[in-house]
């Protein structure tokens, strides 16, 4: 065996041993709070704050973070007292970051989190419970995992039901089409829950409009470029049969508009979803008929606030009714009629929210089908 290979193996063996030792030390630390607190929730006077989310490359997550920071400042701390745990779309990283944060702060934590995918919510909640911390989640969790099964530690879960709002945008679209013609749907990543719900909303509305045909529905993966290319292909396939476009989010609508612009087609009825500033402007300009705002700023702030107030003992989650622990977030339909007013209220200046008013803006308890 060459010396190089021998050296290499030796080096790898040593580093693996170091790694195992370090892991053992890490696990002991992580288990410590569990030893003393036995997994029971303890009130902390000054819990460490963190938001665990996907990335900073989208307007949506930036609004979530701005809400979290607004809450942090509202309790007299600087913005950077809230730690960003960025999972980059990896559930493993999401869980590992949260475990590291719990270990560092001996469990005295208030964490807000989107678990990245549904199955990851349970291990996150288990890790937080074992360390005696507090977590509030949004978007992703499986139907069989409930905050009330984790004592006080899994404070709450908020999600948004997209079916109803997507149905409303579809109705606005169909009215603009004069109740007849052909519609195409450009969807999100096919397996994503919001993508499924938004298409279902469209299908629900179709039942009341027998003269409108759903020509095609295909995923554009929430992506502007892909949407432009898909729309161009739809134009080849269906041509003038397309008299309306239902988009699963704003980014897709931008791509659709550009594909139509390339062909010199103007005035096509289009609806979108998400209520991003650019889309709201387009609604005001008459390029889009409607979009739906889910108020991510409020969602980002209130989720962290719930975890924080549970941690300092302002309320005891296990004494709250189920609809206070699993609930739908607010949705606001933005149309040409109210876009200017909406923009002034929510986008030009950020409203000041009462971060201790947890439930009144929400949309009721989560209903499982």
């Amino acid at each position: 065996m060459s010396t190089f290979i021998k050296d290499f193996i030796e080096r790898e063996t040593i580093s693996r041993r170091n790694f195992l030792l370090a892991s053992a030390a890490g696990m002991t630390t992580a288990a410590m709070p569990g030893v003393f607190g036995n997994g029971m929730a303890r009130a902390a006077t000054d819990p460490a704050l963190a938001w665990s989310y996907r990335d900073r490359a989208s307007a949506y997550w930036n609004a979530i973070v701005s809400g979290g920071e607004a809450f942090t400042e509202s309790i007299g701390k600087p913005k950077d007292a809230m730690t960003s745990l960025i999972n980059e779309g990896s559930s493993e990283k999401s869980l590992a970051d949260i475990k590291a944060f719990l270990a560092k702060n001996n469990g005295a934590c208030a964490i807000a989190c989107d678990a990245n995918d549904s199955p990851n919510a349970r291990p996150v909640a288990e890790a937080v419970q074992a360390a005696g911390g507090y977590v509030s989640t949004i978007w992703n969790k499986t139907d069989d995992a409930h905050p009330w099964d984790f004592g006080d530690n899994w404070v709450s879960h908020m999600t948004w039901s997209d079916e109803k709002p997507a149905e409303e945008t579809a109705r606005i679209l169909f009215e603009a089409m004069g109740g007849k013609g052909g519609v195409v749907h450009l969807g999100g990543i096919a397996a994503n829950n919001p993508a499924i719900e938004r298409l279902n909303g469209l299908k629900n509305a179709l039942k009341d409009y027998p003269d409108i045909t759903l020509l095609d529905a295909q995923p554009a993966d929430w992506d502007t470029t892909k949407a432009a290319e898909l729309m161009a292909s739809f134009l080849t396939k269906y041509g003038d049969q397309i008299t309306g476009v239902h988009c699963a989010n704003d980014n897709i609508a931008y791509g659709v508009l550009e594909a139509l612009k390339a062909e010199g087609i103007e005035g096509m009825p289009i609806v979108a979803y998400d209520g991003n500033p650019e889309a709201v402007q387009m609604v005001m300009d008459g390029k889009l008929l409607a979009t739906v705002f889910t108020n991510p700023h409020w969602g980002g702030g209130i989720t962290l606030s719930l975890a924080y107030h549970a941690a300092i003992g302002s309320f005891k989650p296990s004494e709250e009714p189920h609809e206070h622990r699993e609930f739908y977030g607010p949705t606001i339909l933005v149309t040409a009629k109210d876009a200017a007013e909406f923009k002034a209220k929510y986008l030009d200046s950020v409203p000041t929210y009462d971060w201790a008013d947890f439930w009144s803006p929400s949309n009721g308890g989560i209903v499982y089908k």
Partner: protein
Amino acid sequence: MATPFLPLIQGGAPLREDRVRQLMTRENAIRWAPLLVLIGLIILFTAINPAFLSQRNFARIAIAASPALMVAIGVTFIIVMGSIDLSMEGTVGLTAVLFCFVFLATGGTLAAGAWVAIPVILLVGALIGLVNGLVHVKLRIPSFMASLAIGFVGTGAAVLITGGDIVKIDDDTFRALLTWRIAGFPLMVYVVAAMTVLAWFIQSHTTLGRNFYAVGGGEELAHASGLNVRRVRIMGFVLAGVFYAVAGILQVAKLGQAESVSGANFMFISITSVVVGGVALWGGIGGIWNTVVGVLIVNVINNGMVVIGLPNYLQDGMLGLLVIVAVVLSTDRRSISFVK
């Protein structure tokens, strides 16, 4: 080697039987395979839905293919050298975002002096390529890792500059690249055609272009012959960076906006196209025209699958399958002893 698609019939001499046999060699079959695959696909899609074979649809495919072709040509220079460049997503994203910022800062319309943004961004692309090349050559990091890392830095910088927001450009003069049509094709298609001819010229008629093949065909030999291999490598990355910047600008022209993820998916599309077109990943084989055909194959497949109404859950699988078929047909695998 440098001109893979020689004209089939040279001169006006009548074809004799031995000449026909000469043309029907294995080498020729492989050289022309990508083009035959492309023609086969067009016939297939047209047979299923005649709407596919229309000038308007070809214009749509051309628009979709334009930025992707610029990226693919950039990476072709690198792959011909036997290296790989994975920085395209970050570079395209960053140049697209910076282009919008410079464009808006210098007046917001081409007429008002915002044309300055174009040379500035080409220079930025060259600089990113230079850093990429220097990191790869001077620090002796494999091009795979060095370029991937630079790509991440590019995406990160774009996120930092935009704060995750979208930057829009509404100048009608600039958007004429998409909206102004000559013979049914938007202006950007002609820009891409001109850039492609330029790339072919660099490849076939300059010392640098031939040196790429020398390095890709046998680096030790090239080095022993007195070629400054490291310099050629760095120049290759600079050239690729410029083409990525062109793609960034065209991406803005196509969508009227830039964001940090404007370069998303270009890595898969460009590398796939280059390989499908018959450029060998081990270097020295293929060139610009292979890449052009490869990009067209991938875009024709993407468009055609929707036009013939293939269910969306089959589309990804079908794309993968067709890519394998195209590579099997278009690369001379007998000439290499092993594949890694």
